[in-house]
């Protein structure tokens, strides 16, 4: 397939069946391989969409500095697009993210400001909001609240899924900015409302939840609970176990957050089998495993991997 430039090739990712993990011919699992995007993650869609929207409304003009709180993938996607278009990019990233993500960001020319490990992405958001207030000329695209993030999935990911799998009964995605689930949820609520929208949320170690007051939690501005039907919290043990199953049984090498998503997808599959219902369950492979090799999640026993992930932002 031919494209005019790299950014034109974002999206239109393959949807592959998982015959070995699917419990039966009636209950099938399908993986949407978002690691096949230009920088290797689903975030290329949101990053491109947010930049195009900001250019269209005039808030982003040549020479601008973009600021973004990110645990890595969105920053890498923004960095790729920003470099093509001549924007400076500053990413606020929690210090407990994998070294590969920092290396990639630096390679693409982004500047990194570290936020404290304790508090995880909440802290990155807080630091970025503070910097944005100090530097009104910087443009914060703000993936947690930017409608263009969800719109990328409403216009791209969801119609692609529906076209490839008209019999879809469930969609399972990761819950971070909530953009993927909000966009896809809204599409199916309109077009095929019986599709169950399921969220898999990573559950980190205690360091990430921090010691801050419970009233200072964070819910992304994009989040609309009416667009999802259930929400699972998945810890590192289950995520690692599933990501390894995905490699062993289907040959798909995915990032750790995809293990959490698969865990929730398999729970839906088991539920359908028990109820004697037909199901076509599609889920997102958000990225591949390359950026997480240094975390130690892919070697040794599950116990060892779980210990190594303690305190890390593994998804």
């Amino acid at each position, binding site marked *: 397939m031919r494209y005019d430039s790299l950014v034109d090739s974002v999206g239109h990712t393959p949807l592959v069946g998982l015959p070995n993990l699917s419990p039966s011919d009636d209950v099938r699992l399908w993986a949407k391989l978002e690691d096949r995007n230009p920088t290797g993650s689903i975030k290329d869609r949101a990053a491109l969409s947010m930049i195009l929207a900001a250019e269209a409304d005039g808030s982003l003009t040549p020479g601008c500095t973009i600021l973004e709180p990110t645990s890595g993938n969105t920053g890498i996607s923004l960095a790729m697009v920003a470099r093509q278009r001549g924007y400076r990019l500053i990413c606020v990233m929690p210090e407990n993210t994998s070294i590969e993500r920092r290396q990639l960001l630096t390679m693409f020319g982004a500047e990194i400001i570290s936020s404290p490990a304790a508090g995880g992405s909440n802290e990155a958001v807080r630091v970025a909001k503070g910097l944005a207030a100090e530097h009104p000329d910087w443009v914060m695209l703000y993936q947690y609240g930017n409608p263009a993030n969800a719109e990328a999935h409403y216009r791209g990911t969801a119609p692609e899924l529906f076209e490839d799998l008209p019999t879809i009964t469930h969609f399972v995605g990761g819950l971070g900015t909530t953009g993927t689930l909000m966009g896809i949820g809204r599409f199916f609520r309109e077009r095929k409302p019986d599709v169950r929208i399921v969220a898999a949320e990573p559950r980190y170690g205690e360091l990430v939840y921090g010691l801050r007051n419970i009233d200072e939690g964070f819910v992304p501005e994009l989040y609309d609970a009416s667009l999802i039907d259930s929400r699972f*919290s998945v810890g590192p043990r289950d995520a690692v176990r599933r990501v390894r199953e995905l490699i062993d049984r289907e040959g798909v090498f995915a990032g750790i957050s995809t293990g959490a998503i698969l865990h929730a997808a398999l729970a839906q599959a088991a539920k359908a089998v028990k109820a004697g219902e037909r199901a076509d369950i599609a889920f997102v492979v958000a990225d591949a495993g390359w950026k997480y090799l240094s975390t130690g999640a892919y070697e040794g026993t599950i116990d060892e991997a779980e210990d190594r992930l303690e305190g890390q932002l593994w998804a």
Partner: protein
Amino acid sequence: MAVEVRIPTILRPYTGGERAVDADGTTLSALIDDLEANHEGLKERLLDGGELRRFVNVYVNDEDVRFTGGLETALSDGDTVVILPAVAGGAA
């Protein structure tokens, strides 16, 4: 009947530092009342005006109770309840 309740760091002053405590109740609402009976002050940290606080997430066997009936979510012997502050997560 016993349900294991995992307590986040920030709320452990109410449980004498315990990371997990056992409690009883056939619904989440009843469970929270039972928690309050043994760990005074906890209920007020979880609920506001009879609803879960906005930045408090509660999971029964890993599923968010806001999608399973809220405070009326049914509990059975051996269930695990996890209480967590809401955070930004995912590969953002």
